[in-house]
């Protein structure tokens, strides 16, 4: 009897592992930056090249940093979700226009609406690199101390906003 049960158990365990593996996104690498201070930057605004914004300017607030680009398809999917989030005014949402052309980025916001409190312009992607960006869109949750608390790889959806981001924001705002 044992000689039939044992291979079956081994098979079942393997099958469960493989099944879990199927459902995971291999592109989603956990960020080592979670729990670390947000890398410093000083970037011009998309709408105003003369104005510079740095991480220090956001101290004392819980905020979101949303990395996007005009050439990124998934960013168009998440755009209405961000518009909705912005209209609720829960936290400031900063856009990071990543490796884009200024006029292209501005055109997107003019046409589809601008969900961002401020939009930073990262033309050469240097700041994006410091934040470990390897695919847009990516969204960072940063707390009042300037520490990265979560990183979402891929589009913001109503689901992950409700289940993951909003609860975290509420918790961080209370601190």
């Amino acid at each position, binding site marked *: 009897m044992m000689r039939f049960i044992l291979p079956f158990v081994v098979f079942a365990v393997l099958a469960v592992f493989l099944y879990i593996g199927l459902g995971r996104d291999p592109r989603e*690498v*956990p960020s*080592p930056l979670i729990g670390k201070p947000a890398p410093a930057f000083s970037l011009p605004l998309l709408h105003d090249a003369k104005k510079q914004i740095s991480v220090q300017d956001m101290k004392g607030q819980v905020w979101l940093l949303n990395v996007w680009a005009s050439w990124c398809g998934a960013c168009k999917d998440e755009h209405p979700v961000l518009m909705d989030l912005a209209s609720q005014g829960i936290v400031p949402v900063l856009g990071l226009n990543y490796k884009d052309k200024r006029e292209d980025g501005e055109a997107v916001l003019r046409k589809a609406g601008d969900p961002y409190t401020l939009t930073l312009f990262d033309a050469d992607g240097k700041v994006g*690199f410091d934040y470990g960006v*390897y*695919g847009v869109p990516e969204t960072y949750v940063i707390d009042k101390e300037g520490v990265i608390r979560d990183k979402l790889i891929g589009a913001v959806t109503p689901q992950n906003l409700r289940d993951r981001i909003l609860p975290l924001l509420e918790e961080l705002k209370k601190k």
Partner: protein
Amino acid sequence: MRYLAIALLCLLPTVAFAGEAKDLADDPVMERRMIQLAEKVRCLVCQSEAVASSHSDWSNDVRQIMRDKMKEGASDQEILDMLVERFGKSVLFDPPVDKETFPLWAAPFILLLIGVAVLFFQLRKRRETVPESTLSPEAHRRAAALLNEEDNK
């Protein structure tokens, strides 16, 4: 004249793409060092491809940053550390052995040990269950005789 026009037309595509080859650094020695280092780094947007051989935008950026850092005098290890800091240990094809990655490194050996142990016990059990020999001395003699006969033919 017509042949010249055709020959020129054939050249057109090459001309159109010539602008894109921007990857080569001015210093071939450093470029070799950079490629060697980039072999150790995983392209995060392609999976299972090294940054050295990937054509993705992200890999291009990483190679450029490696060049810049090398020009600034950074060591290979410093550059790898900088990448790990931003993208995690999985960005290296050979992640360092530490508390977090130990199961990953040890797993093949543990599995091998389990396999050897199972094989060992199975073989011992089989030796116990298979009876040595049930032939009577008479039957042995007959078998030997038959075998000899076979040989003599």
